[in-house]
């Protein structure tokens, strides 16, 4: 029987440090913001032990101002007041949990703490443990706001669920089953559609896929079956690696780390080929699947080449890709634009404050985006700093295009570039199921990018 490694309610695998200096134009949430990762699991509900505005701010920002995704916000909260600050809030939490189990219905509740309990010293672990002993489907994740951001909080939550809810397992492994760890829900406005398409692609080569978050997931039931997977697949430059390592220790599950979320034919073929090799699936299976998918794909790109080559050539089609965003989508989008559309990499600023230990790996992932084409990346969180880095980067003779957030609107105008919003905050896109992953997603991205380019000229 396999057991989870050490309890992991509190620390992320990768150690977090608040970035030095003040931050303007904030681009991520605090660790409590990972409550959106709980909401992203169908049939899971977070219970927050924090101040009155904390949970709502995180939710409203990351679900509302990130493509207006909306979502399930019925979050129980202690809304900590003066009394709890002075006398401690553990009793109030206990009362709330009791009431929650009566008023609400879910397969899993994740108790998350904010800044205040950390400062006043509530023993939340003990409160939650008592309920768990009584059989309530409750776990505790310490997501103290000043100790991490929503990225590290996401890992904390996943590990808490694994350790406290999934638990030890005797289930046999299923040879073709995989757990996928990729987009950070809500932070990335396209996570729902992308995870859905990632699942479809992996199923296309014969895998049984636990996608774990979003509409394409079976929800809590899927989490329960995590130990059954033959392996974990991390599709992100660094996020999820901590979880995969934890699962490797807990369930002796190996993992495959592919930093680049695949967009377009080359990346998707390479991605599936690597997964297939790792999973022991024949190359022919990938080839057959790719051939079926690509028939229409290339017909569309064949026809698009008329526009791209200039049949309506008054448009200044971009030649240099500038990105300000989290490393995962920056890599995916810059990779596609460079590798498949033949743009040159410009300033690429990664904004999620990834742990220091992950940065070399991230830098490496941006090398050889296309054969012989490297992108140099820089890390920055503060808006004016991000913009200075972009402004100061060479773009002589280029037509730049900016992939970024709403914060880049003024900058893009300043350098005469169209802006495509790909990350939080994103106020100019309403996103439902749109995906950029794989062959189909690449076409969607092409449509979107060049519609933006065209409008920059036609609606000017």
């Amino acid at each position, binding site marked *: 029987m396999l057991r989870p490694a050490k309890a992991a309610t509190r620390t992320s695998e990768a150690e977090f440090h608040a970035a030095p*200096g*003040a*931050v*303007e*134009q*904030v681009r991520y*949430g*605090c*660790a409590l913001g990972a409550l959106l990762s709980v909401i992203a699991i169908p049939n899971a*509900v977070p219970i927050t032990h924090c*101040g*009155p*505005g*904390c949970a*709502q*701010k*995180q939710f*409203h*920002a*990351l679900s*509302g*101002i990130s493509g207006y995704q909306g979502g399930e*916000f*019925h*979050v*129980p*909260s*202690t*809304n*900590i*007041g*003066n009394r*709890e*600050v002075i006398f401690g809030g553990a009793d109030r939490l206990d009362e*709330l949990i*009791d*009431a*929650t*189990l*009566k*008023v*609400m*219905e*879910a397969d899993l509740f994740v108790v998350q703490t*904010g*800044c*205040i309990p950390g*400062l006043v010293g509530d023993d939340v672990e003990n409160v939650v443990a008592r309920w768990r*002993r*009584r*059989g*309530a489907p409750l776990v505790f994740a310490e997501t103290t*706001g*000043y*100790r991490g951001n929503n990225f590290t909080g996401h890992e904390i939550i996943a590990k808490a669920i694994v350790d406290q809810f999934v638990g030890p397992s005797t289930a046999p492994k299923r040879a073709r089953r995989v757990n996928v760890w990729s987009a950070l829900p809500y932070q990335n406005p396209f996570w729902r559609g992308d995870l859905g398409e990632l699942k479809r692609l992996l199923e296309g080569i014969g895998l049984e896929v636990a996608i774990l978050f979003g509409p394409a997931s079976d929800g809590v039931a899927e989490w329960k079956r995590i130990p059954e997977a033959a392996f974990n697949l991390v599709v992100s430059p660094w996020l999820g690696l901590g979880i995969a390592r934890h699962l490797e220790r807990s369930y002796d599950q190996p993992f495959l780390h592919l930093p680049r979320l695949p967009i377009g034919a080359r990346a998707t073929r390479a991605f599936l080929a690597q997964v297939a090799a790792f999973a022991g699936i024949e190359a022919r299976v990938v080839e057959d699947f790719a051939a079926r998918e690509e028939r229409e794909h290339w017909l569309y790109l064949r026809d698009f080449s008329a526009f791209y080559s200039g049949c309506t050539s008054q448009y200044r089609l971009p030649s240099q890709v500038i990105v300000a965003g989290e490393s995962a989508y920056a890599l995916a989008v810059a990779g596609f634009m460079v590798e498949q559309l033949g743009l040159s990499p410009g300033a690429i600023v990664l904004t999620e404050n990834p742990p220091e230990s992950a940065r070399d790996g991230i830098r490496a992932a941006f090398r050889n985006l296309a054969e012989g084409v490297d992108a140099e990346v820089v890390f920055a969180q503060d808006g004016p700093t991000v913009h200075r880095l972009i402004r100061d980067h060479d773009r002589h003779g280029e037509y730049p295009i900016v992939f970024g957030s709403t*914060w880049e609107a*003024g900058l893009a105008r300043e350098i005469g570039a169209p802006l495509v919003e790909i990350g*939080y*905050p994103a*106020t100019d896109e309403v996103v439902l199921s749109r995906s950029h992953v794989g062959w189909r997603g690449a076409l969607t991205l092409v449509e979107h990018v060049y519609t933006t380019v065209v409008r920059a000229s036609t609606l000017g």
Partner: protein
Amino acid sequence: MAINLRTVEAETREQRLGTITQWDGSASQLAADSVATHGCGHARPGGRRLCETASPFSQASMCAEHIAVTNATIIRDSVVIQHSPIGCAASQSFTARYARDLAERRGWKPEDPHSVCSNLGEQDMVFGGVDRLAAAIREAFERHAPRVIFVATSCATGIIGDDVDGTARALEDELGIPVVTLHCEGFKSKHWSNGWDVIEHGILRKLVDRAPAKTDPDLLNVIHLGGPDVFTPLVAPLGLRVNLVMGGNTLERLAELSSAAATVTMCFVLSYLATGLEQEYGVPEIRAPLPYGLDATDAWLRDIARVTGREDRVEAVIAAERARIAPELATLREKLKGKKGFVAAGAAFAHGLIADLRELGVEVDGTFSFHHDPMTDSRDPRQDSLGHLIDTTGDVPNFTVSPDQHFQAHAALKRANPDFIVTRHTGAMASLAARMGIPVLPIFYSNDGLAYDGLLTIGRAILRTLPKKRFYADVAAHSSFPYSPAWLAETNPYAAPPERVRAEEPAC
């Protein structure tokens, strides 16, 4: 109890006004109890001590810091420092969106407003964050050359006890511009509307011209939540100019507050500033009930005319306005006949919207008020907006006070079963109603329902909203809430959490 501008912190609403956030019953009972307890409305029979209800269940709500910081951020030429861990600054994104939208409505240049998070980490919790704060203030000054800097506290800095005021004073001296502290720790009050008091306290203390050269007899302060200027068309015929404050206005407008002929508030939730202006600078506060519905609007205009000495002109304005809107108002009443509405909004604003709906012929028997203030800072009974509502339009049988508690709103809406809902603070309420199949009229700009035109604006908006039932009903039929069956059936917002038999739970 007078407003005390000598302290850096505004007293909370609970302390000053007896504000409650949880209650359920008839509006008339609530009004009577408020008067019985706090004595600031028209006495009415049956009043007893106002007893705040409670529920062991509660859901994530808003905080005062959010209101204070938002409204400081959108002041022109300002920078706000959120002295906090990064999470509090999540609101920057929606504040920026709001500022851009405001700019569009007001014809201003759309620009991102400036707010900076001091970004406190674990080390700062241990050793204190004032150095980071000072650095952030200096950096903000360098970057944006603001004319004022606000420093907002957070739960974390409140608990660790950073000397924010000391730092602010030091930097004020160093930089030569006002550095205004906003004490808005979320845990300090049960209601977000304290955020208004906090920013208004700051304005009164530091931004109002403390020694105005003279009073401008044609200048009328209008304190609103933000949005289109619906006031100028209304009072310009009286020869008044509008000094519209809050909602992203300039420092000049704030300075001018003390030299105006009078102050009106668009909603008594904002009356801290109005009362403070009267107390400190003798600018009279218009006390007439808010201008929701025809008669109230007439009376409000007359009171403004009286206070500013323009009685000679006001009757003509009233007659002309009434005549202008009469035909469409009649049409709207015809089309809205037989409809039932539900209002969810904050206190006096909710009372106003109910008056509007009733003036339009819409039935309202249920309301969800995010808080209840038994009195206003002026303590003038004329500002008893709930009492006024009941007196002029009748009781509201089911009147729920609750700070956007989703589960309680579910019960209240199930009880009311309205044809549509009008709501502000739409985060939880709008999506809840939508999911229940109820058409939603969200009010973002709270001036929409004001005065004569407000009736038309709201009436048209309802007509736009009703056909969307088709969308909401389909979504309702295909989605569910994570509430227990017992709670889903509940129609009493303050019912006790239903006991459940959990077969799977072991005895221990």
